[in-house]
């Protein structure tokens, strides 16, 4: 079974600050990590391989330093790694990114003899869009299941998974190949092993440019991105809210009154 895991290198969000003048992230001195949701995707991929056999190919699109994220993924048990990197990708929105990744996955299919499952984290901690996974499946024209919290059953040509919803979960069957996005409930990512870290250090990382993946230049980067960023701003801090004091009947009466005001406007 060939499993492809798509990951993204992101700034460690606990450290991120925004430059109030330019409205951009201050990335200086901020550590880069694998997007936390993608860690669950890696773990899901490696567990699937351990159960079914096969290989896990991890892909990221990003600048050359994103190689560190790929090596970390190898240390956790991924077998091969692809860095899709080209200046032409700069300024990609989720549409252009998912197009680029879908081209890379098509090339992967040629290099590694097809694919059965593609796994992505549900969203990235920096952009929070949750659009790239579904975008990839659309570009590849394969089924997608988002917010997967459990892979119940995998057969030669189909899967059964649990998909988390606000009310509970759906049980969904899908034919292969299929794309999942996973939520943190699916597993607990492993700590790498020392042997894995050693393998990761010397592993060969494939680096593919726009030309290598046979992508149409007009669909890449800024020119291939229909999204227009109108404004970026830091949302105002929430104020502390209103604290209602008094004995129980007083508090209840006041609360009901306030709620009535809200409902009736």
């Amino acid at each position, binding site marked *: 079974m060939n499993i492809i895991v798509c990951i993204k290198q992101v700034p460690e969000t606990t450290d991120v600050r925004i430059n109030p003048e330019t409205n951009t992230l201050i990335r200086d001195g901020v550590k880069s990590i694998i997007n936390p949701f993608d860690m669950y995707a890696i773990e899901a991929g490696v567990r699937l391989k351990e159960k079914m056999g096969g290989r896990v190919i991890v892909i990221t699109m990003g600048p050359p330093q994103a190689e560190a994220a790929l090596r970390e993924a190898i240390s956790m048990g991924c077998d091969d790694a692809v860095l899709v990197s080209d200046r032409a990708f700069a300024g990609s929105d989720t549409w252009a990114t998912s197009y680029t990744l879908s081209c890379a996955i098509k090339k992967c299919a040629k290099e590694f003899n097809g694919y059965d499952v593609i796994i992505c984290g549900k969203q990235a901690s920096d952009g929070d869009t949750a659009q790239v996974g579904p975008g990839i499946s659309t570009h590849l024209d394969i089924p997608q299941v988002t917010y997967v919290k459990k892979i119940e059953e995998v057969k030669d040509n189909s899967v059964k998974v649990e998909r988390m919803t606000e009310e509970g979960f759906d049980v969904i069957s899908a034919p292969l190949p299929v794309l999942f996005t996973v939520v943190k409930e699916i597993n607990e990512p492993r*700590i*790498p092993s*020392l042997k894995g870290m*050693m393998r990761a*250090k010397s592993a060969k990382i494939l680096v593919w440019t726009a030309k290598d993946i046979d992508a149409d230049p007009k669909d890449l980067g800024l020119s291939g991105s229909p999204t227009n960023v109108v404004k970026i701003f830091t949302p105002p801090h929430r104020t502390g809210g209103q604290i209602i004091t008094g004995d129980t009947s007083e508090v209840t009466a006041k609360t009901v009154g306030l709620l009535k005001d809200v409902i009736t406007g």
Partner: protein
Amino acid sequence: MNYLLTDEQKMIKELAHKIAEEKIRPVAAQHDKTEEFPWEVIKVIAESDLFGLFIPEEYGGMGVSVMNLCLATEELSRACGGIAVCYAASALGTFPIVLYGNDAQKKKYLPDLAKGKKLAAFGLTEPEAGSDAGSIKTTARKEGNYYILNGTKHFITNGGDAETYSVVAITDKSKGARGASAFIVEKGTKGFTFGKKEDKLGIRASSTMELIFNDCKIPAENLLAKEGMGFIVTMRTFDMSRPGVAAQALGIGQGALELAAKYMRQRKQFDKPISSFQGLQWMIADMATELEAARALIYSCARAVDAGEKDIGAASAMAKMFASDVAFKVCDMALQIHGGYGYMKDYPIEKYLRDAKICQIYEGTNQIQRNIIGLQTIKDLGK
């Protein structure tokens, strides 16, 4: 300070650090309270290959390196000295087999210990034989192809939870220290049971138990080296393991220093963070400097052991004695910096002081270490 670690050593440090922060620190207080053995952490350490650091590659390990073992133990101990010793004590129990086991013994026992599938423990101390290890009373009597063990060991770290025990017993009382021999005893052997589990001041995540041998019959092939080699096995084992105890102490001290430095920037008195007071800055300076001196001594000693240096006894004793004395002092100062809060169990620092204390006592009290260092120094320099 840059200790010119190799890439592999940097990885070991990074990996052990990650385990300490993500898997040990969150559960340290709980294990301290309940005294439950931290199997869930041991499993993570096992899967990370760190149990392989004290076992040769041909037996499934990562190659024997005291330096690597020290780096791992130091990092794990930063988060919890009690959980870290469950790991380090397995090294102590394994060294006799690594050093003196024959090929068959190594093949039988080391692969599972390297993978962390089983833990090891070392059984020397007895109720009447602590610092005076020569007075042990447990006997091993040869009968045909077997040895029959009788006696009681106590204060055995990993006792009960380990599967593989290296045990020292007297085979010939008339020969004194040359009458002791070392054996491998498996948990579950008939006649081998466990006594009481100790209720301890610190390192409460680790188990400390009595081993009771009552006509315990073990195959003669479980003898390590030869009859009469028991104390040589023990001394050489301690030479290898003392830097590890030193590293445990260092890690506990380092963890306490980090907690103190963080606390003093948050805690405000007289309208200022207490880190702005010079008196406390000087305390931190002494703590940091002494820990760094301990680290330099431990790493030098560990590297000498790995390089095959023969007369390592005094250096190994110095590392253990100095690092554990420094660690206890540093934990005391770190608690002092926390003031009244530091005395409360709501804060993690009091546990560091309790955990640090044992490092001055086990694997030879620091007074015994001073005996070793003193005698060796006089012998070397007094000619």
